[in-house]
């Protein structure tokens, strides 16, 4: 048993490979040879993980992966426990379907990060692509639990169809954020693109930066929600996400929507004093 398992990319990859199933809870029970023999999909061919990565360590639920991983998809997908540290930018579907544990990406990630996840924590220090924490194709709901923290910005449709859970984005998010959100919370420290919360059922969008409130959301009041204070304090203490001056105390304008649905959702917009 090692303190950790470390995978290092042997050489740059010029076509995407998929390594779904390489999770820290899995490496916790595998020898170095077993890990190297894990199957990966390279284009239309099956290959061994050891063909692309050098493997050091065994039987540990602390997994480190390093290199330029932008063409590596599915890192940590389905993680149930343990800790995955990705030293570098990663491809698509990072942490998709994860149920527990901790994934920390020290770089950017592609589309579909945290897709349909239902537990654990996924932290990305750089930017994320589209559909962050959203629903897999054809699925009725997106993430149903857990937390996604993005220090940079995220693309379109963040938190789309989310059923529960928390997504916090330190930068901006693209259009259609929280589209058809069922429940859960999206906090955006920067600006939010067009059509936020369209078709939402419940759920919260906390907007600390610019946002155009859709006409289907009705203004309720300006107030100081203790919930936002609690949430931002938690994000700072747990993830070091520093809140800009004044946002803890508010005030926030509350809008209820989306009118086309039951209208139990909300947008809380920070009002500059």
């Amino acid at each position, binding site marked *: 048993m090692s303190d950790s398992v470390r995978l290092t990319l042997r050489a740059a990859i010029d076509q995407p490979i998929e390594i779904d199933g390489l999770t820290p809870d899995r490496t916790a029970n595998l020898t170095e040879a077993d890990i190297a023999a894990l199957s990966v999909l390279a284009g239309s061919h099956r290959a061994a993980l050891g063909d692309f990565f050098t493997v050091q360590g065994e039987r540990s639920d602390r997994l480190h992966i390093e290199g330029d991983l932008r063409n590596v998809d599915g890192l940590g997908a389905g993680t149930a426990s343990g800790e995955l540290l990705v030293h570098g930018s990663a491809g698509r579907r990072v942490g998709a379907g994860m149920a527990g544990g901790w994934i920390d990406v020290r770089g950017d990630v592609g589309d579909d990060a945290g897709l349909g996840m239902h537990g654990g924590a996924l932290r990305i220090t750089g930017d994320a692509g589209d559909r962050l924490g959203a629903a897999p194709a054809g699925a009725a709901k997106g993430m149903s639990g857990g937390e996604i923290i993005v220090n940079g910005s995220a693309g379109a449709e963040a938190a789309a169809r989310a059923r*529960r859970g928390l997504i916090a984005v330190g930068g901006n998010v693209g259009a259609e954020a929280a589209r058809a959100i069922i429940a859960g*919370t999206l906090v955006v420290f920067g600006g939010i693109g067009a059509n936020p919360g369209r078709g939402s059922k419940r759920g919260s969008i906390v907007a600390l930066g610019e946002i155009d409130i859709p006409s289907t959301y009705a203004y309720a*009041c300006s*107030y100081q929600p*203790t*919930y936002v204070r609690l*949430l931002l*304090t938690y994000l700072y203490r747990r993830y070091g996400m520093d809140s800009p001056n004044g946002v803890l105390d508010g005030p926030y304008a509350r809008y209820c929507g989306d009118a086309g649905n039951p209208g*139990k959702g*909300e947008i809380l917009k920070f009002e500059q004093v």
Partner: protein
Amino acid sequence: MEIRGVFIQDTFAEAFGMRAARLVITARTHKWAREAALKLTGFATSVIACKCEAGIERELGPAETPDARPGVSVLFFTMDMDSLGKRLVERIGQTVLTCPTASCYDGLPEAADRLSAGRALRVFGDRLQMSKIVGGQRYWRIPVMEGECLIQESFGVQKKGVGGGNFLVLAVSADAALAAAEAAVKAIEGTPGIILPFPGGVVRSGSKVGARGYTGMIASTNDAYCPTVRPRTKSELPDGVNSVLEIVLDGLDAPAISRAMRAGIDAACRPGVRAIGAGNYGGKLGPYHFHLRQVMADE
């Protein structure tokens, strides 16, 4: 045993197992957090008549509270889980929910046993309430005229709480007894896991089980320590003692009671105090026995 000339009687305090909860009440300012806490812990001196015992444990700074606002930590004790749940719903509902800017959080997050007081209170929102999960804990946002009241869904329960730790200050005068009791309270206040549920932390009407003169009484005056009836009863008062005050402590566990008793007794050993005693029922009722000399000998 003597401490600074004060005799420590060879006796023990007899205490009971209780169920305990810790509430963290926050508000915009310390004033409002304290207002809510004072109301919540009001009329909560003894389970005999108040159905619960409660008190302020200590004030909390913004760095110690979940929402980074000023707060107050409150401990809450009852004899059983069922009663604890009911009392929490009643008291949080009538004191925190009503208090401007106040919120209520669980102060025992590690406790496995939990009571869903916040869940019960959510219905005040008449289906307009919202729930949110932060850090794995569910909170209820209940719409109120001021804006919103935030209450955590579940509260941890400490099953090994201890109620009724005590010691008696036997003094030559009422003034000396009060001064010693105040010194003891000052020494105990702020001890983690401890509250003093009686007024100012002090009890003048210690009780015995039942009554000789009336049937059906659960408790009546502890006449053995009442100076005015010394000739008419089987008095336990040493010569020269003209006033007795009692310090009653509830704690999250027995070691906390011991630590607080030690600090309090030491502070109470001052001029005008003849002896320190303790209240017990012969050891037949309560499972926790705090022997004064052992408490004072422990370090």
